[in-house]
């Protein structure tokens, strides 16, 4: 491991007019670390995630990312071309709704291969072999490679979306309620898979969830948000077993329906 963070976020705020999206969020993310962002609906989780992944520009604050070459770059000062390149190489983004992150009308193989082609791979056989490999890693049968995701179940679509994101070997993956729309049994399988992949690949991830069980399973560290602000953060086990903020105590004791 390295002694430098991967991402440094400082005093990040996003306002929608006068409404607070998220406010004054500060944290560092380390290589290979999974950070869960929890809180009830409307607490600002998605806003924060979208700002961090540069899908949204914050109203104020900074975020710096350590590039593969070791250089620190201020995310909101990068050109759009640089940001888009980062997003399809060193980053991944897993949407709650797989249809938002997949091309529904091209085959599973092409969905996985797209990023490779986007970065210049021009060898069909190699692209296909990589797609086969990734499908098996997310437990999708090789013989589904030429099927469109339209024909897939929700769980399969979500696994395909994950494969599509991981194929370029990103170092940081953003996930917004990755198990959100799925049945409980399907959720459990996906969580197992995610946990294994994240560990095997040494991925850093920021996972937004309203489900404390997801945070417990996936993350080493967590931040609890309320009304756009971080009310508590710390190691996941510590926060869940020994919550300090009164709001977190309510959350953990499940008095609050999140």
């Amino acid at each position, binding site marked *: 491991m390295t002694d430098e963070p991967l991402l440094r976020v400082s005093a990040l705020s996003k306002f929608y007019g006068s409404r607070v999206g998220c406010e004054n969020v500060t944290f560092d993310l380390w290589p290979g670390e999974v950070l869960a962002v929890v809180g009830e609906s409307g607490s600002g989780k998605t806003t924060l995630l979208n700002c961090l992944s540069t899908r949204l520009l914050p109203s104020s604050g900074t975020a710096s990312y350590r590039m593969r070459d070791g250089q620190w770059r201020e995310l909101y000062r990068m050109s*759009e*071309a640089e940001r*888009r390149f980062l997003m*399809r190489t060193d980053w991944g983004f897993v949407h709650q709704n797989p249809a938002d992150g997949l*091309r529904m*009308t*091209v*085959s599973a*193989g*092409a969905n996985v*291969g*797209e*990023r490779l*082609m*986007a*970065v210049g791979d*021009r*060898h*069909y*056989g190699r*692209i*296909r072999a990589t797609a086969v490999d990734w499908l098996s890693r997310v437990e999708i049968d090789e013989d589904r*490679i*030429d099927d469109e995701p339209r024909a897939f179940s929700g769980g399969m679509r979500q696994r395909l979306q994950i494969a599509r994101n991981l194929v370029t070997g990103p170092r940081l993956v953003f996930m917004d309620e990755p198990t959100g729309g799925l049945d409980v049994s399907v959720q459990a399988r996906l969580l197992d898979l995610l946990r294994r992949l994240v560990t095997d690949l040494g991925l850093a991830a920021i996972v937004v969830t309203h489900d404390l069980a997801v945070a417990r399973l996936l993350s080493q560290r967590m931040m609890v948000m309320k009304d756009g602000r971080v009310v508590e953060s710390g190691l996941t086990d510590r926060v869940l077993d020994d919550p300090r903020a009164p709001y977190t105590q309510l959350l953990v004791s499940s008095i609050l329906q999140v």
Partner: protein
Amino acid sequence: MTDIATYNFAYLDEQTKRMIRRAILKGIAIPGYQVPFASREMPMPYGWGTGGVQVTASIIGPDDVLKVIDQGADDTTNAVSIRAFFKKVAKVAVTTETAKATIIQTRHRIPEQPLTAGQVLVFQVPIPEPLRFLEPRETETRKMHALEEYGLMHVKLYEDIARHGRIATTYAYPVKVEGRYVMDPSPTPKFDNPKMHRSPALQLFGAGREKRIYAVPPFTGVVSLDFEDHPFEVQTFDQPCALCGAENVYLDEVILDDHGGHMFVCSDTDHCEKRRGDPTSSSWGDRAEGAGGADGQSSPSSTPIPALRADPPHNGEGKEAE
């Protein structure tokens, strides 16, 4: 009584022509880039070459010699109508001979005879955006062009190979122009793609309904996209042209009777007739003899501007036909 007098030279008013010429110049300056232009109503429906006609109308002069082909043929209704249109509104000479033409307006083919410096090839384009297939949002495709994000084009070719075992796209086969912009060469067969590469002729593309003009200047690199292990290749034909014996040309299948009789003949009718030394090929009524500007104030015809109608669109293989 002078119908012609009510029309400006080449039908379009000078201001419109200037606007279109500016778009053409911009297109030439940025090879393969789609330049928006204010497409005008033409006396023909969209889908019958309004983009190409506007381009031709903006560049044509009294000394030009115009050839118009549709799927390689000079004698289809659409080609005849457009030729007659310019004969009427610009009084230019027209020809079917590739070598004699200074401007060739085309739908779906590039002549077999290599073009030369000074010639202009004007393509009629139905759908100018090669990325449209997978990305319907115009804002996004423009961004992809601007940032040179062309992975999606290979996704399309990947799908072809996954489904058919080879790149099955045979028309409108995407190309990269001068190493920068990915361009749709219009629904010409991919057979013609290599002819675009470093052609001495100027190639202009007009899409009327979509209001886009783009260009490939002379001697510009035009490379068909492919994979290392599935390289681009043109169609080949098992037999030569049944009429003239030509090989390595693009052939059309012609049905001869109701009993399955058919033969393959040159789609480029001028090329075929030339090779056969066909005497009828030079006896067309609208050939180059009647140079518009040349025979002075040729009789102000009382026939109206020919209504431009055309044959039903040929199959553009998955693309909307122009």
